[in-house]
């Protein structure tokens, strides 16, 4: 379970998250929607441990462990995964090696046995196939020269291979064509189950037709200003944020 309590964080003197309260129980998928610049990516970065943010108050725990005290790699090993809004290119780093290094680093940290190259490739190839990705993706350098949509799919491939307990998907749908959107949604749905939860950040109702969330939250001005069921996404799609923001003010 992810529990965020009155979380405040910012960059230098600028406060971006102004008291976030959010609980994602194990087994549930929650969506976060909200205007540009409201702090959605900032929240996902703070939860995954990117440098440069100052947490000024509140807490965030995952299955009882204090996330904010952990190194990013320890958060990953404990089951947290962030699909980046802007996936990072790693020139000179082979995608297959990257994935295998990541998977084995996590397994090592958890005291599990590492996968040898053969077993790993079998696993990765199966996932690639399921996501309808080109086979040569594994041979290429991480995200280098990938199209926008290919980068997003590569994020989902990593998620599928790493099998997190909690996935944060930051606008994984933007830039995807309609077929890819379905494939990505299927990738998430395949992981759904009593031990998996997800936080799906999106601007579009469409993704939520495929990944039906248990709850929808509206993040605006650094706060969750409203929460509801899947119908809230339809309401936002129809009326925009203005009404919800005005109502909360």
């Amino acid at each position, binding site marked *: 379970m992810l529990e965020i309590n009155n979380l405040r964080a910012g960059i230098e003197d600028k406060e971006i998250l102004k008291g976030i309260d959010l609980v994602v129980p194990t087994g549930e998928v929650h969506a976060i929607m909200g205007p540009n610049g409201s702090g959605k990516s900032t929240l996902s970065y703070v939860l*995954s*441990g*990117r*440098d*440069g943010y100052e947490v000024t108050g509140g807490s965030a725990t995952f299955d009882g462990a204090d996330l904010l005290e952990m*190194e*990013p*790699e320890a*958060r*990953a*090993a404990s089951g947290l*995964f*962030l699909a*980046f809004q802007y*996936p*990072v*290119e*790693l*020139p*000179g*780093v082979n995608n297959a090696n*990257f994935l295998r*290094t*990541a*998977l084995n*680093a*996590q397994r090592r*940290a958890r005291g599990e046995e590492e996968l040898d190259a053969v077993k790993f490739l079998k696993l990765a190839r199966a996932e690639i196939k399921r996501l309808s990705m080109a086979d040569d993706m594994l041979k290429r350098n991480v995200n280098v020269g990938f199209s926008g949509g290919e980068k997003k799919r590569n994020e989902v491939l*990593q998620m599928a291979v*790493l099998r997190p307990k909690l996935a944060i998907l930051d606008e994984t749908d933007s830039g995807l064509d309609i077929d890819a959107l379905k494939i990505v949604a299927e990738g998430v749905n395949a992981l759904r189950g009593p031990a998996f939860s997800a936080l799906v950040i999106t601007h579009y109702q469409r993704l939520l037709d495929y990944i039906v969330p248990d709850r929808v939250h509206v993040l605006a001005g650094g706060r969750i200003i409203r929460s509801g069921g899947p119908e809230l996404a339809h309401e936002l799609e129809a009326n925009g944020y203005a009404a919800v923001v005005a109502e909360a003010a």
Partner: protein
Amino acid sequence: MNAVSQTSLQASAQGFLARYEGLRHRLAGDTAAREAGAAAFTRHGLPGPREEAWRYTGLRPLAEIEFHEPVVLLADASAQFAALGLPDGPRLVFIDGRFRAELSRLPENIAITTGAPAFGHLADNSENLVALNTMLAEDGAAIDVAPGVDAGTLLIVSLGADAHGKPVSFHPRHAIRLGAGASLTLAEINAGTGVYFNNPVITAEIAEDATLVHLREQREAPGAFHLSTVFAEIAARGTYDSFSLALGGRLARVQVHARLAGEHSMAHLNAAQLLGGSQHADFTTVVRHDAPATASRQTVKNVLTGRSKGVFQGKIEVARIAQKTDGYQMNQTLLLSRDAEIDSKPQLEIYADDVKCSHGCTVGELDADQLFYLRSRGVPEREARNILVRAFLSEALDPVTHDAMRAHMEAAIAAWWEEAPT
């Protein structure tokens, strides 16, 4: 301060000259060549900070040490030798600059002469350290590959050791000649223990359509000095393809002069310098395009930690006759600590009008976003940094297609990283 360093440089040069006086009648090889070297060294001495080519690399640390002629040669070098984990195959082994037949394995398809310096025809004694080498050279290999022969791979191993407890210097002199259409991969490994000064000069004459691949691994002892000079001359359609890995020594400089003498000849002068602590390493190149349609490529990467200092000086000269020259030079540096320093000096002298020459230089730290991306996937910070450093080096290392040497260099880099401070 200049005055002080001048004095110690002069005193050191006097020491080398005195040594020559004592040895001159005992040294093997071409006396006239040696005399010319001694005359040049008498005139030039050791280079000081006022010499343009030595502005970034000061030799004072070298001048402050008195180096002796290696006398008590390491009798049993087998332990050090085994530690090198050498690839199989033919090899020439030199200990403190002296050829050691019992550790070597001569190839069948290459004519090799040892026991005296192989002066060759290309070296230029106006280079101070070449003059020093010519004056004191005690041994070396003349390596001749007959026309049309694919000679495979030959290792040249240099082990330095101050076996009698006093710093020693040695001045190996090798001459390589490839006949028309011949090919050879020459792989050098320079290593050792203690305080010593390795001052090799290598000349390479590459005939028409011949290819010399020259792989150099410099992992001298932490207290060692390595100042080497290569002269390569490449005839029409010939190739000199070199990669130089520097990660050892206290003070090191690799200087390469490549002259593209025939049409469609090509030179690759790639290098990687990995430095830590207070190490200093310098990669200096002079590429002269002296014929039309010649190409040169240089990719030089530096990874610097601690208080280390890296230097790259790359000069491309294009003669008037050398139309359609294609020259490329790229120097990239990763600074892994605040106190490390890189000095980079590209120089283009172009006298032809139809040429394509480019050079670039970047200096940066590890990319924070890339580092976070890796860590967010569960890769521990140190391993993530290692992955990014290796990725940075890959462009320079990728042309090293010789599997065994590539693996040897990869292992040397991995060992370097193990010991490098974060």
